[in-house]
């Protein structure tokens, strides 16, 4: 039996970053807003209190902040002819769980896209010709330009208190910032976090080679900061327990540290936890959502009517909910038609362990998730001429460390055994004298890389799991090799005594056991045409006008940056369209 709840103006599915942003924007617009979260409530205190938060076994290895895969996971295969099997242990990507979602365990890298990233198909075909891209590559534009999005990217930075140094202030290139970034109207709200020593060695070397290192824009606040909502963040102390951990210093931007102190007190906002949405309901025309159905903590089905539905779960969960709800045409890799599940992408990294003699002292345990690291962006996006290289996209190169945790962050030179006396000796010799240089690169969208419902495996409620069909393409091997070669040049300039390299080469399959980045994208992409995208430029469903879908599921392909800055900007852009246009006259914001 299904219980029917009192209708609300807007229901939000998933209470992480984008759910909380929409929650406050819509509540401020006067709507009666309800957020449904499958997990539990949690907050900095008591859940991430020191010293309990600094437990690498609990959080780093056992993944206490992540969704339990035994109840729901995804299945994975490399090719259309393979049989997918379930992802049973965390490796390649990490699903957030509970209030705050992945906004709790992230590192705080806060990038804007390069202007060309948002119009990638148009830009590449204009500069290099349509034939420059392989036939099965299906990259697309977002339908929104950098200039249009800029104020919203800024809004999200000022919400988070991003610490960084502008490289392009209203078109003027500034020393020490990223000269390749799009013009920004305002500088970052906070100065950069101080460099760790490894980052300094990296930046000095890159500068000597004529590259343009700059401090990584970071949502680990470099100083206490009060955001425009009056919510105050603490300062990052570079404790080394950031990614995979909650922040006890109130300095890592998350819904909890930037929005909830205001949002949770709003009388017209309510949060219902332990509420797992399984379906978006439609009226008889199939053109209008009537609300959602969820399963509560007691396992009962509950219907929640709403005039407006915001789907703001993790990228993969968004795609799955659309497929389970039968909204939009599922993507078909055989014909290239259909939109739900289209253009799934991941990212590709390489990394170099850099080992010095005993006279170079690096305290690796001093590390922020993103602050204190230096970046070279010369070989990302279309910051350089790709014509002779035969690939599109790129990667940023970073130098420095985010912590020196013993299990996951202790690096030893190549050739060291994985355990035993020789490993211990190498660990002891190198721990205080090593740092990391890595590349963080884009992955394009391809006709045969997509998401659909698995024909075999089901979740704890008996609903089909999402199936990933993904492997690397030549473009990405070439990209990674090229940028890694540039990284190697920097490393050589750092004059280490030894190095170790992890690089994915042609023939290497995508290995879901290996963590690179957690950034998965696509499946409910935004764009200019309902033929090739599920959402219009305002993240509104082409098919169901009172349904908006947020997050990285809207990315047409994966860019070389960490996605959160763009996700936040797109969310504010969408929220403004809802508040100022949609609510006055509900209907499609773009005519198909």
């Amino acid at each position: 039996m299904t219980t029917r709840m009192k209708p609300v103006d807007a229901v939000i599915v998933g209470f992480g970053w984008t759910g909380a942003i929409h929650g406050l924007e819509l509540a401020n617009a006067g709507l009666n807003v309800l957020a449904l979260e499958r997990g539990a409530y949690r907050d900095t205190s008591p859940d991430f209190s020191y010293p309990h938060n600094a437990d690498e076994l609990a959080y780093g290895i056992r993944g206490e902040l992540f969704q339990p895969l035994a109840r729901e996971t995804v299945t994975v295969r490399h090719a259309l002819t393979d049989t997918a099997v379930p992802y049973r242990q965390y490796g390649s990507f990490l699903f957030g769980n509970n209030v705050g979602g992945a906004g709790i365990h992230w590192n705080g890298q806060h990038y804007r896209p390069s202007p060309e990233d948002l119009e990638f198909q148009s830009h590449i075909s204009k500069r290099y010709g349509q034939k420059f891209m392989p036939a099965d590559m299906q990259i697309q534009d977002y339908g929104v330009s950098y200039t249009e999005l800029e104020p919203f990217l800024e809004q999200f930075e000022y919400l988070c208190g991003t610490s960084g140094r502008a490289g392009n202030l209203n078109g003027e290139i500034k020393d020490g910032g990223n000269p390749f970034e799009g013009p920004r109207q305002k500088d970052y709200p906070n100065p950069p976090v101080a460099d760790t020593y490894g980052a300094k060695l990296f930046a000095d070397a890159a500068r000597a080679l004529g590259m343009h290192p700059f401090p990584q824009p970071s949502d680990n606040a470099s100083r206490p900061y009060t955001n425009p909502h009056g919510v105050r963040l603490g300062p990052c102390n570079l404790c080394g327990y950031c990614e995979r951990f909650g922040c006890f210093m109130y300095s890592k931007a998350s819904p909890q540290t930037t929005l909830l102190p205001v949002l949770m007190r709003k009388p017209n906002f309510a949060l219902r936890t332990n509420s797992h949405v399984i379906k978006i309901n439609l009226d008889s025309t199939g053109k209008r959502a009537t609300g959602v159905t969820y399963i509560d903590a007691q396992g009962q089905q509950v219907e929640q009517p709403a005039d407006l539905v915001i789907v703001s779960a993790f990228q993969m969960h968004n795609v799955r909910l659309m497929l389970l709800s039968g909204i939009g045409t599922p993507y078909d890799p055989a014909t290239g038609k259909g939109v739900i599940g289209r253009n799934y992408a991941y990212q590709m990294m390489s990394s170099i362990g850099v080992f010095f003699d005993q006279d170079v002292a690096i305290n690796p345990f001093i590390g922020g998730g993103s602050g204190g690291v230096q970046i070279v962006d010369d070989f990302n996006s279309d910051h350089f001429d790709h014509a002779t290289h035969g690939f599109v996209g790129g990667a940023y190169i970073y130098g420095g460390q985010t912590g020196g945790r013993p299990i996951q962050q202790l690096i030893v030179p190549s050739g060291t055994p994985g355990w035993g006396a020789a490993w211990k000796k190498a660990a002891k010799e190198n721990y205080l004298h090593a740092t990391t240089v890595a590349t963080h690169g884009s992955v394009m969208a391809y006709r045969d890389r997509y998401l659909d419902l698995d024909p075999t495996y089901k979740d704890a409620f008996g609903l089909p799991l999402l199936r990933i069909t993904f492997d690397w393409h030549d473009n990405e091997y070439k990209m990674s090799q090229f940028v890694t070669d540039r990284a190697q040049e920097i490393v050589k300039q750092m004059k280490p005594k030894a190095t170790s390299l992890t690089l994915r080469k042609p023939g290497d399959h995508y290995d879901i056991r290996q963590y690179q980045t957690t950034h998965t994208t696509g499946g409910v992409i935004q764009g200019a045409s309902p033929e090739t995208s599920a959402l219009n430029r305002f993240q509104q469903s082409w098919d169901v006008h009172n349904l908006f879908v947020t997050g990285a599921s809207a990315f047409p392909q994966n860019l070389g940056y960490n996605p959160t800055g763009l996700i936040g900007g797109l969310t504010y852009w969408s929220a403004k369209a809802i508040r100022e246009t949609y609510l006055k006259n509900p209907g499609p914001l773009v005519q198909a």
Partner: protein
Amino acid sequence: MNTVARRRRGGGGLLRVIVILIVLVVLAWLATHVFRGGGGDPSATAPPPTPEQVRQGEYLARIGDCAACHTVPGGKQFAGGLPIASPIGTIYTTNITPDPTTGSGDYTYGQFERAVRRGINAAGHTLYPAMPYPSYAHVSDQDIQALYAYFMHGVQPVQQANKAEDISWPLSMRWPLVYWRWLFAPKVAPVEGGGDPALAHGQYLVEGLGHCGACHTPRAFTLQEKALGPQDGSAYLSGGESDNWVAPSLRGELASGLGSVGEEELVELLKTGRNERSAVFGGMSDVIEHSTQYMSDEDLAAIAHFLKSLPAAREEAPLTYDPATRDALHGGNVSAPGAQLYVDNCATCHRTDGHGYGQVFPALAGNPVLNGPDPGSAIRLVLHGGTMPSGRDAPTQFSMPAFRERLTDQQVADVLSFVRASWGNRGGAVSAQQVARLRSLPPEGKTTMTGYDPRAQQP
């Protein structure tokens, strides 16, 4: 025989004493009924209120912090039911919504006035002095009328029966309270302040509705505040105790009082629950959340102005920052007792220089809380943690974690002795016995959650 005779004789003497006592008690009881009095006129009525009066009454109810006691966290506003521990048992606050059956809906203006300013309810019984009527005695007629207008016409009536107090006989008899009232409640009269109008206004708010002395003035053995205003001597606001928290002196002591705190800093603390150096904790958190954050800047400035006019009750030398601890810790020297514990547990937020971070983590260097004779509040904070209240334009509630499971009594004593002697602090050593006494006292182990955390309202 002798034994029996002696016993009988002794029994006769005891009987005589008992009879005399009973007679005296009956006479005393009769007296409280014969001389009912108490002043005021229970039958007095008020003219129909103006909307402005209702609004003003709402503001004054905030200043009086009525909600802090008459509203249960998560419960209906002003419906009462909050347990208050007293030395003789638990009493429960009453429903003061205008519900005619379970609240005060049928109170005349006179009955309301007598309850608030004279501590006598409609039935003629004396209220437990948990109700701060000795302070409210100083509230003006005009303000009492506005409060009456608000409680009768601005508050939603709630039907919720009052809970009987949890006190055993004979202590449950109320008539002895009449003597307490006769002895200790002051005459009903507004505070008379001459000269500086801001000073006079501040004094009116602090002594009257603000009832700051209820916690910040020491109490005598018989539980009355030792002073109800500056005219009663330097005991007034010289530091008291509430709910096992130390309520620090609000007078001008240079180390442990407000001597080193500026008026603007005080205003900010009352408005937001924090300032560049300090933060509110313990019982004062409710005061910020329910009361002072709603006060006008003008009223807050007057309060700060008046408090800063109170001379020190104790001679204290000013605190001056001493960089020795900072330099030692910065240089890796943790040889001082408690220093290693400080670095491991405290320094990440409060920093090795003891300055903390403004509006986030309070400074320990020069903090009056750490420079008073009683380390009780600091011990409780280390054991059980604490959460800042939310204030006006300051929604973030920073928490300090509880260390009770991580640190022994001796370790808490060591780290606090270190903190109370570093960076120029002169608070004196803390003993493990002091920590042990406070470890299990209520409110013990209260979870450090924000006020909006849905789990905070769950049982």
